[in-house]
C-alpha cells in the first residue's frame, strides 16, 4: 500500500526544472555560453594562443556574471519563495517542515481510520446478513 503522501500530486524535479527553464530561459542560455567561452579558451591554450585565451576568459567571467544575474533577478522577479527551500529564518523553516510532516501523519492516520472503519462496516453487514440467513455460512 502506498503512503498517503503519494495521493497528493507534487511537482517533480524534472517538471520544476523544465518550468523554470521556460520561465527564465536566459539562465540556461548564459550557462551554455559560459561553457562555450571556456571551451574556446581551452582550444586557444592548445594552440598556444594565450591572448585569445585571455579574451575568452573575459567572456567566460562576463557570461557567468550574466547567468548569476539572470538567476537571482529571475528569483526576485517571480518572487520565488522556493529558492533553496524556503525564505525565512531556520526556525520558521523547521516549523514549516514539522507542520508539513504532522499534516502528512494526520492524513496517514485518517486513511488508516477510514480503512479500519470500512472493514468494521463490512464485517457488520456480513454478520447481519449471516443472522438474516440471506447468505449461507461456509
Amino acid at each position, binding site marked *: 500500500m502506498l*503512503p498517503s*503522501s*503519494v495521493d497528493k500530486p*507534487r511537482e*517533480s*524535479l*524534472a517538471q*520544476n*526544472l523544465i518550468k*523554470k527553464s521556460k520561465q527564465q530561459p536566459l*539562465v540556461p542560455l548564459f*550557462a551554455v555560453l*559560459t*561553457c562555450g567561452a*571556456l571551451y574556446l*579558451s*581551452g582550444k586557444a*591554450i*592548445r594552440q*598556444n594562443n*594565450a*591572448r585569445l*585565451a*585571455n579574451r575568452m*576568459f*573575459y567572456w*567566460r*567571467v562576463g557570461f*557567468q*556574471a550574466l*547567468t*548569476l544575474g539572470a*538567476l*537571482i533577478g529571475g*528569483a526576485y522577479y517571480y518572487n520565488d519563495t522556493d*529558492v*533553496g*527551500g*524556503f*525564505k525565512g529564518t*531556520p526556525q520558521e*523553516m*523547521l516549523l514549516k*517542515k514539522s507542520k*508539513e*510532516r504532522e499534516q*502528512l501523519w494526520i492524513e496517514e492516520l485518517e486513511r488508516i481510520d477510514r480503512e479500519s472503519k470500512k472493514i468494521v462496516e463490512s464485517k457488520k453487514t456480513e454478520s447481519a446478513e449471516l443472522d438474516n440467513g440471506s447468505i449461507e455460512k461456509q
Partner: protein
Amino acid sequence: MMQKNMKTNLYQSNPFHLVKPSPWPMYLVFGLFGFLLNLTMMMHNITDNYMMLLINVITLIYIGLLWSRDIMGEATYLGEHTSKVSEGLNMGFLLFLMTELMWFFGMFWAYFYSALTPSVEIGEIWPPMSIMPMQATDLPLFNTLMLLMSGATMTYSHHALMARNRFNSMFGLFLTMLLGFLFIICQYFEYYYCSYTLADSVYGSVFFMLTGLHGMHVMTGTLLLCLNFYRLYNYQLTSEKHTGFNTSILLWHFLDVAWLFVYIVCYYWGV
C-alpha cells in the same frame, strides 16, 4: 648534474624532453595508498586516529612540492621545456581536464538519478522529507560571488603578465589566492553549520560528494596558484612563456564553471 644537462641540451637533436628517473611518482603512489587506507579505516570506524591522516596529507603535499620543484628546475634552469614540450604539456593538461569533466558529469548523474525519481524510502519527494536544504541566497551566494570575482582577478593577472606588468600580475594573483582561501573557509563553515550530514539519506551523500569534490579541487587549485605566485615572484614566468600559469588558470576557470552548475543544481533549481 646541471652541467651534464646543459651539455646534453647542446647536442640533443630533437626538441623533446627525455625525462630522467625520478622517485616522486613512486613516493606519491605510496602516499596515496596510505591516505586511502587511513581514510577508509576512519570511515569504517576501524581507527579514529586523525593524526595518521594528517601525516598522510602533509606527506602528499610535500611530495607534490618536491616534484613541482624538480619540474620548475627543468623548465626554468635546464631549459627542457621547449615549445614542443609545452605543446605536449598543454595537451596533457587538457586531457586531464576532460577526465575531470567526466568525473563531475558522473557526480551530476548520481544527483539526478536520485533526484528525478526519488525512491519510496525518502518519501518519494526531493529533497527528502527530513532534509532542510540550504538557503541558496545565504552563504552559497557569497561563495559563488567570490569564485566569480576570483575568475575576474585571475584574468586580470593573466592579462597583466602578458602586458609585462609584474606588480599588477602579482597583485591579481594574490587576490585570486585570497579569494580561493576565503572560499575554502566559507565552505568549511557552510559544512559546519549544515543541518544534515553525509550519512543523512542519499541527499546528503550526493550533496556532499558534489560540493566536496569541487572543494577538494579548489584546494588543489589554490595550491597551484601559490606555486605560480612563487614562480612569478622569482621571475620564472615570462610574458611570452608561462605554460604552468596558463594551465593553472584554465583549471581555475574550469572550477568556476563547475561551481556555477553545482550552485544551480544543488542550491537553486534542483531543490
